[in-house]
């Protein structure tokens, strides 16, 4: 059972994602903002982070840079699950920030997200 941190600003979307991912048997916690997410990671390092890029207060990219600034957190795989399409950012750019997959919410079913988590955790 993997520990997953979901970083999603919208409470209803978070509730739906949590509902779908709990079905796959993982231990999932939810944070709505970058700052509380950093505090949560400080208390317990997750095996995987799923995050929206557009957050309240800080942007998701700021959060990723913050994550990369701590050596012990650099190896945490991050899945971006965002309503913002990936606007041609090179894969290398995201890899440098620890991002292993980028999903555009309107085109990604919850089931696809759950399946990809299992795959990423197996290969990590």
């Amino acid at each position: 059972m993997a520990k997953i941190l979901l970083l999603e600003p919208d409470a209803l979307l978070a509730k739906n994602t949590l509902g779908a991912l709990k079905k796959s048997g993982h231990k999932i916690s939810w944070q709505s903002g970058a700052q509380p997410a950093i505090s949560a990671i400080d208390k317990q390092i997750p095996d995987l982070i799923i995050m929206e890029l557009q957050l309240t207060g800080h942007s998701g990219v700021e959060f990723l840079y913050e994550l990369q600034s701590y050596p012990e957190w650099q190896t945490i795989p991050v899945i971006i699950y965002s309503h913002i399409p990936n606007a041609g950012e090179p894969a290398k750019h995201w890899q440098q920030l620890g991002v292993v997959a980028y999903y555009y919410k309107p085109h990604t079913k919850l089931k696809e997200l759950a399946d990809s988590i299992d795959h990423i955790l197996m290969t990590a």
Partner: protein
Amino acid sequence: MNLRIGILGYMQEGKISAPQLRGTSKRRQSADERLLLSLAEHLKLPLLQITQSAELARLTNRPLEQLESIELTAENALKLLDNYLFTTQLAQQQIAAELEPVSLSAVLHDVADDLHKLAAQYHCNLQLHLSGRYEPIMAHRRGLEAALTSLGYVFIEAQGSVETAHKPVVKLAAHRGKKGVVAGMFADAEGLSSDMYQKAHQLYGRARQPLTGLTASNGAGIFIAESILSAMSARLRVARHQKLNGLAATFMPSYQLSIV
């Protein structure tokens, strides 16, 4: 149409030049485009919520649990669209924002009823606070309701996503100000400053999230509210109500009924 006649009249009298007119219409077109972009982005959120809820219902085999959420989200999206349509009709002068004496407390009660379910969905504590009794205010009733409801969506969605130790409070409130009766939405978790409001205007249409410190949604409701209120000659501004920050507009009381 009236606006065109008015502008042509001004041009004939030499009060407005052709380049000035082109500038005005360009600015208006640009504002309309920004509002449309903002609304399109904003509608992604309820549609995503509906899609995900439907999928979750299928995955968990519990359709009834999700049905209420789907219904409410769809209703809210329709109201947002309806308010946008109303704003556009006002802007194009298809309907006139004729001011009439309106009972503010009746409008606030109706808006609170409308927002109640959304607040429950986002685990917000929605409160209605009227400091005293008011004489009728000069407003367009449908417009005022639409503006306050649009503002309410933004505040509830924003406060619902803010991490707080207690249940976030969103207050629909009115109080007497120096220049009239102030009515608007107020919240306790996140403060709004004039700077942030200004920044929102600069970023409006360029990012999904103009109010970075306030909301993760795009805040289209604020601009819808602002457009409707400005059609009623009221201005949306940063305000405070009982130590809460928010956005509100000031309305002139109707003295006509007092005399009668």
